[in-house]
């Protein structure tokens, strides 16, 4: 039953992992090792895991840990060339969905794209039409059947890719970071479709994903690939780190507290808060033992890590009551030692500008003080792409003050990128004015970093900016961005985070005063996001003005000072970031939704931890 291509075995029979088949939907990998040609270190070394039929398996690991290489081994047609050993048992046919929504689409009309796999199988026209109709109605794509594929949004394209793979009825579905190019809402939508396929069709799903917020609660098993990552400093940990470990989701969270601490950042916000507040339970423990309280409550609170906002709220309530109880007990018995938590718990409303947000915001208490300070002023801006189309921006007004980071959030196709293009001068407004200081230099970072590279190596690319780029400057900025070791590489060989930093470095070489950033966190994992965020903070500290358009609310909450919502062609609710998120009830961070009405004034994880975990 397995779709096995034997031609590759014939090429190098002595160095290939043996492929056999097992019962439908199961995957057994036994001590699989693989190294690319001309590579000294193996990419995969002696990996073993298995998947039962109908499992939803999440594969995670840091960049460069060989996730993609492993996943490609499971797809017979795409097995990479190189030396491998071990055993692969794959039950049934395998469907494969890749990262980039655009590049996987082959044909021009949605209907044809869905039919592609069936056409390749040589099925009769009537059977193809029937199956396409079925899959289209399953995914709610009927109304798009006649549409041109290029007119779809990114999220629709990726769902089309999923549907076009599923139409061939694979027994196992392999996905390589399918949501990394999507905005959070589209990603959520995609993952729900994926979960539905898993639940309703019983298809085994193996998904590599760094958006754990969504996947963790829907998966059955977490496979963690330990990498020989360049970031781990000592050689000993590199050597022993290789391998793969399998956890249940709850165990995985538990392990993030102990051995896999560097993965804690990937977890959903409620889980992170609960994990980081683990000390609380220790404190409770102390008070509890003094009073000889039963252990059960504490055990429960500790082990049952919340994975989403709902369970996060439950956890918070119970922890909170335990804390209150403990502190009151303690204050009764021994007032001096138990002072700290009791005091902190009274002060549940934290000031608008917590120091923990990592910014020097205290210096500028009135962020959007009236226009005399603003660096870019937009008055009554109207814009549309075509006479026949409706206005995307309608009488938009905004002011951006210098030396700060401004966030613009909003739904899909709300016109956020268009607004950036207008500020950057790529488009001309049909009505209204954008006032910029003439002496200021603007630079924009395109959404896809690939668009900003034109040469064969990164260094060449930096020098291509013109004669004004000196080697010292390049080196300085490369050091700032921590990309010196990448200067000789081809820009396309960089990982998402590296490419983003390199593109940022290139833009910074032009010494801009104002930086326009379009979705800078797209496709980045939690670590790269944090790194990029710190760079933004640094730039703002150097006095640069940043305007960030993003879907990523937690990121905006952490790294911007003012935030505004672009909706219906207008900028609504331009406000200080903290207030902005506090006053929103739906369009806000998970932490805020989790702590709302229990602890006031928490927007970021750090805000919450400050209350729960006072130093």
């Amino acid at each position: 039953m397995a779709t096995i291509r034997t031609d590759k075995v014939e090429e190098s029979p002595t160095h290939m992992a043996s492929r056999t088949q097992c019962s439908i939907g199961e995957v057994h990998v036994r001590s699989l090792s693989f190294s690319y040609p001309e590579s000294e270190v193996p990419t995969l070394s002696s990996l073993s895991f298995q998947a039962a039929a109908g499992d939803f398996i999440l594969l995670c690991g840091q960049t460069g840990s060989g996730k993609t290489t492993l996943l490609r081994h499971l797809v017979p047609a795409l097995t990479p060339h190189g030396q491998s050993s071990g055993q692969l048992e794959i039950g049934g046919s395998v469907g494969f969905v890749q990262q980039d929504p655009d590049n996987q689409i082959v044909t021009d009309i949605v209907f044809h794209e869905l039919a592609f796999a069936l056409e390749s199988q040589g099925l009769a026209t009537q059977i193809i039409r029937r199956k396409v109709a079925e899959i289209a109605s399953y995914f709610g794509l009927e109304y798009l059947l006649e549409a041109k594929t290029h007119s779809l949004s990114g999220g629709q394209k990726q769902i089309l890719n999923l549907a076009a793979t599923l139409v061939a009825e694979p027994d196992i579905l392999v996905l390589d970071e399918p949501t990394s190019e999507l905005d959070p809402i589209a990603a959520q939508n995609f993952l729900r479709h994926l979960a539905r396929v898993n639940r309703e069709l019983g298809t085994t799903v193996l998904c590599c994903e760094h958006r754990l917020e969504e996947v963790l609660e829907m998966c059955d098993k977490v496979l963690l690939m330990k990498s020989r990552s360049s970031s781990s400093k000592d050689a000993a940990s590199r050597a022993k780190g290789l391998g793969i470990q399998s956890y249940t989701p709850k165990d995985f969270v538990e392990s993030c507290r102990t051995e896999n601490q560097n993965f804690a950042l990937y977890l959903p916000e409620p889980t992170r808060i609960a994990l980081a507040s683990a000390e609380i339970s220790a404190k409770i423990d102390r008070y509890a033992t003094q009073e000889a309280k039963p252990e059960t409550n504490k055990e429960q609170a500790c082990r049952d890590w919340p994975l989403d906002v709902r369970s996060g709220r439950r956890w918070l309530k119970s922890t909170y009551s335990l804390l209150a109880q403990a502190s009151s007990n303690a204050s009764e018995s021994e007032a001096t030692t138990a002072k700290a938590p009791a005091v902190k718990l009274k002060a549940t409303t934290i000031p608008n500008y917590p120091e923990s947000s990592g910014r020097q915001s205290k210096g500028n208490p009135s962020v959007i003080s009236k226009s005399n300070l603003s660096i870019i002023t937009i008055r009554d801006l109207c814009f549309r792409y075509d006479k026949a189309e409706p206005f995307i921006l309608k009488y938009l007004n905004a002011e951006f003050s210098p030396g700060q980071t401004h966030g613009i959030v909003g739904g899909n196709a709300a016109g956020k990128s268009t607004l950036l293009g207008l500020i950057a001068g790529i488009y001309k407004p049909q009505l209204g004015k954008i006032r910029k200081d003439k002496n200021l230099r603007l630079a924009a970072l395109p959404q896809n970093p690939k668009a900003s590279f034109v040469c064969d190596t990164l260094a060449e690319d930096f020098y291509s900016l013109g004669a004004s780029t000196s080697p010292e400057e390049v080196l300085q900025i490369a050091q700032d961005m921590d990309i010196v070791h990448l200067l000789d590489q081809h820009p396309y060989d960089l990982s998402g985070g590296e490419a983003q930093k390199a593109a940022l470095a290139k833009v910074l070489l032009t010494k801009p005063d104002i930086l326009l950033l379009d979705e800078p966190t797209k496709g980045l994992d939690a670590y790269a996001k944090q790194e990029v965020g710190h760079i933004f903070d640094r730039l703002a500290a150097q006095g640069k003005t940043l305007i960030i358009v993003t879907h990523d609310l937690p990121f905006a909450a952490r790294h911007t000072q003012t935030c505004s919502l672009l909706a219906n062609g207008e900028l609504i609710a331009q406000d200080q970031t903290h207030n902005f998120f506090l006053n929103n009830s739906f369009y806000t961070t998970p932490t805020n939704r989790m702590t709302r009405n229990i602890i006031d004034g928490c927007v970021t994880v750090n805000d919450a931890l400050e209350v729960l975990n006072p130093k």
Partner: protein
Amino acid sequence: MQVGRSYRGYSLERRFALLHPVAMMLFFAGTIVISLISYHPVILGLSFALAAISVAYYAGIKALIQSLSWLGPMLIIVILFNTVFNRRGATELFTIERFQMTFTQESLLFGISVALMMAAIILWFRLYQEFMTSDRFLYLFAPIAPTLALSITMIQRWIPLTKYRWQQIRNADKMLSDCSSSYPASAQSDTVHDAATQKSKGRHNRVTRFAPYKSLTHSLSALMSWSMEDAIQAADSMQARGYQANTGNRDSVRALNSDSDGEQRAGTVHKSPSKKAFRRTSFRYFRFISHDAVALALIATLALLAGLAIFFSTRGLAFFPIYRGAEDLSITAALAASLLMSFPLLLEGKEQLRWRLSAQTK
């Protein structure tokens, strides 16, 4: 959000669009061939007028005006060219002594005829474009050339994608170059740089003068590498969905060629694509119903009739040396040609009439 059909014109909602592609293709072939074979003024006038009316009806009056706006000057050039350079013909209109140029009535008439024919055919092709969408075209030609058909679809996918990438690259480049050119400190660091190379002024000028072209070539090469890089993923996606899986293993293909039960296994083939040799099939399907048969027969008859009648009755038509034979056109030829060319409009008329009648009976 883009909804289904909105990318297509209104014309696809019309009755003519329901016609089977074979009948449709025959209509366009017949009409265009008949417009081509005859220089008779009546036929040309009919063809041009009906083409113009059809374009206006289906694609809108704006589309017609748009087409005519560039057709007009082109036709005037064709007419002028013919009149000026064609010295044949007996009836002299006037002569410019200085250049020894004689303009004849016949060459003017010939120029007008050629121009009218070109205009008619271009307008018919405009209508063809409106109805012969890629899926109809591919339905007709995929069985004959499946690889070509797939290539065409892939190119149609590739063009907008490449346009989008180009836009991205140009925008990124524009932002960077805008910024570095308005960079006030650049003059200063330029002199530092140039002092080292000992070519201060000239080099700087050359850099700025060629900068736009340099950035354009850079962008082009970036577009190339981006497209090629991403084409690998497209190829992976095709392979993962079983493209050419049947040719992946020659031995099994050979074994299967001797297999006799190919047809019976069609249902189970999706489970084992590598086990069977087959051709790529196509999802495209247009049912050929009785209406299509009637329409096809009508079009074929009219086209044949018109073609033959025009051919035989206008054999005497000649432009040079004296324009003659224009009065020979038979009634049959004119009638058949006009019926054929107004076939889509008649179809719509019939539809309209039926609506009216059914509305009255209610």
